[in-house]
């Protein structure tokens, strides 16, 4: 092995860790370069959504299930933290952990019977859960504040360092998202993750190979609910205000669109999907009245022509082109 080969091999061997490190470094310096609060607000929102989408992608892309109700867990996390810190005066960090644990319990109770369902039935069941949670948030006026929402949620703090402006939120939310990213990347390459991928491909075959199908599904469902709940808690503390409209079924559909556009089962794609769907309305703002139309059109065109999702689809396309190009070079060399 020459020195060059060794370096290349080292890079290849540690490609995941190195990419994450590079990405973390990028995130670290980003607010130093870009200090416009509006832009930072958008990237923070991307981080929050990415946290939900990472979990959801494990559930949809890896375990091959469907959930049209993850905004419910997102909302439970947000309202849980809001109520725990204002009505019960709990300190924010323990409240966040407590709420995440409670949401995990809810996901377990819902998941155990619901994950016996398949396909469209599961989609309807999760959608139904979301509608139930949304209606309760709207109607349980004395506790949730109804349609007008819930304000006065205290910000998170580490000692004297209070996370109360966009630049500081940036580090808070992105550290959560990066940890979740790292955890997901490791999970999918562990035995459990391979089991999940087998489950997505064929449930019966996976069961034959010794994957405990039922418990694997419930576990990944609970994990994704916890991710969503953490994102919800962060959302509540960052904005200091929550209202039911952030947690309706359309938000759930948006989350799944993020998963699908990023690529089913592509962890990095989750970040990309979250970014694309969050930024798209900003970019097409100029079209004003045609905004909805163009939003739908872009979605349909991507799904129609790159059904593997943008990242995976474009990567496949590139690989294909490269292989064809190499082939052409080889045949030209052979001719010469």
């Amino acid at each position, binding site marked *: 092995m020459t020195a060059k080969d060794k370096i290349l091999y080292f890079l290849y061997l540690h490609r995941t860790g190195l990419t994450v490190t590079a990405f973390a470094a990028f995130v670290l310096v980003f607010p130093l370069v870009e200090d416009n609060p509006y832009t930072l607000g958008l990237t923070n929102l991307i981080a929050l959504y990415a946290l939900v989408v990472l979990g959801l992608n494990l559930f*949809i892309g890896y375990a091959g299930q*469907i959930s049209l109700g993850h905004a419910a867990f997102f909302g439970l996390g947000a309202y849980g933290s809001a109520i725990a810190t204002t009505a019960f005066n709990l300190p924010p960090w323990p409240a966040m952990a407590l709420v995440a644990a409670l949401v995990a319990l809810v996901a377990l109770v819902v998941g155990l*019977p*619901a994950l*016996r*369902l*398949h*396909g*469209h*039935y599961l*989609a*309807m*069941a999760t*959608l*139904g*859960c979301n*509608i*139930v949670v949304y*209606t*309760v948030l709207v*109607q349980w006026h004395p506790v949730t504040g109804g349609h007008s929402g819930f304000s006065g949620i205290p910000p998170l703090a580490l000692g004297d360092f209070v996370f109360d402006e966009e630049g500081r939120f940036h580090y808070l939310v992105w550290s959560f998202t990066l940890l979740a990213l790292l955890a997901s990347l490791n999970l999918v390459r562990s035995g459990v993750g391979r089991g999940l991928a087998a489950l997505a491909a064929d449930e019966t075959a996976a069961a034959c190979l010794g994957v405990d199908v039922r418990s694997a599904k419930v576990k990944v469902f609970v994990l994704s609910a916890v991710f969503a709940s953490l994102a919800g808690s962060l959302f509540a503390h960052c904005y200091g205000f929550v209202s039911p409209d952030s947690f309706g*079924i359309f938000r759930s*559909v948006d989350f*799944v*669109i993020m998963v*699908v556009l990023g690529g*089913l089962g592509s962890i990095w794609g989750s970040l990309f999907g979250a970014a694309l769907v969050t930024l798209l309305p900003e970019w097409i703002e100029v079209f004003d*009245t*045609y*905004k*909805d*139309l163009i*939003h*739908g*059109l872009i*979605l*349909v065109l991507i*799904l*129609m*022509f790159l*059904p593997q999702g943008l990242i995976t689809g474009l990567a496949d396309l590139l690989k294909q082109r490269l292989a064809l190009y190499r082939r052409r070079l080889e045949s030209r060399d052979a001719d010469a």
Partner: protein
Amino acid sequence: MSSFPDFLQFVFAGLTSGAIYALIALGFCVVHNTMGIVNFAQVDFVSLGGMLMFSALFAAGLAMPLALPAAVLGVTLAALLVERIGLRPARSDNPLILIFITIGLSIILRGLMSLIWGKNRMAVPPLTSDAPLVLMGAAITPQALWIFALTLAAIALLVFFFYQTSLGLAMRAVASNPTAAAVVGLSAGRVRAASYALAGALGGLAGVLVTPITTLSYDVGVLLGLKGFAAAILGGFGSFPGAILGGLCLGLLESFSAGYLSSAYKDVTAFVVLLLVLFVRPKGLMGK
């Protein structure tokens, strides 16, 4: 406190909305049986039906007996167009991708409708006069009677279509086994387009019938459509008798929980019961 006329009133209200849910649920089932997907654009066929009815009555100045078939026909043609340019070119047969294409199409349709008709709420007149009839102490509007009558007529036509025409037979063949249907030379594309158009007609009819009761806006179909989907699932997705049964059950459930429990939480009751039914019978009431 709960007297018999009250009870009867809730039954009428439940059956009225139940019939609408049943029509929408049938539309979901028709597409599911031939294409294997949930067609979320169905919710916009409902809104589009109401919108076209509005335009046929006031912009084109048609009389009611002409405006109704014109509106339903319009939605049918729109559905054909949506299938041809929106779904058929898709390069994937993954149901999840196709379902999300229909969600995208639904966003586009809503965008188009809000461009053409605006975002204001409008009112469509009922088919005939709106003086309610009184039956054993409970009031029932002529529109509700029209809904029952036309839903029954639509179901009868569907039965005729599926059992007496060759296209209906082809659709049943594709639903029962797509590969075998292709082997005997049935054109899957034509059958799918036909089923999509049929779903459009059913959704459009539901829209025409329900918008005089609710109000008309570009997104009126969303909640109705989701209830229709819930009804189809409750009955067992893909089963036609299940869709009708599911629709009526959901309608009655909603109306009774609004009447006897709490109108604010009627959706919660309906969906919790739906979830419980699914937990006990994971394939719906009449699913196979």
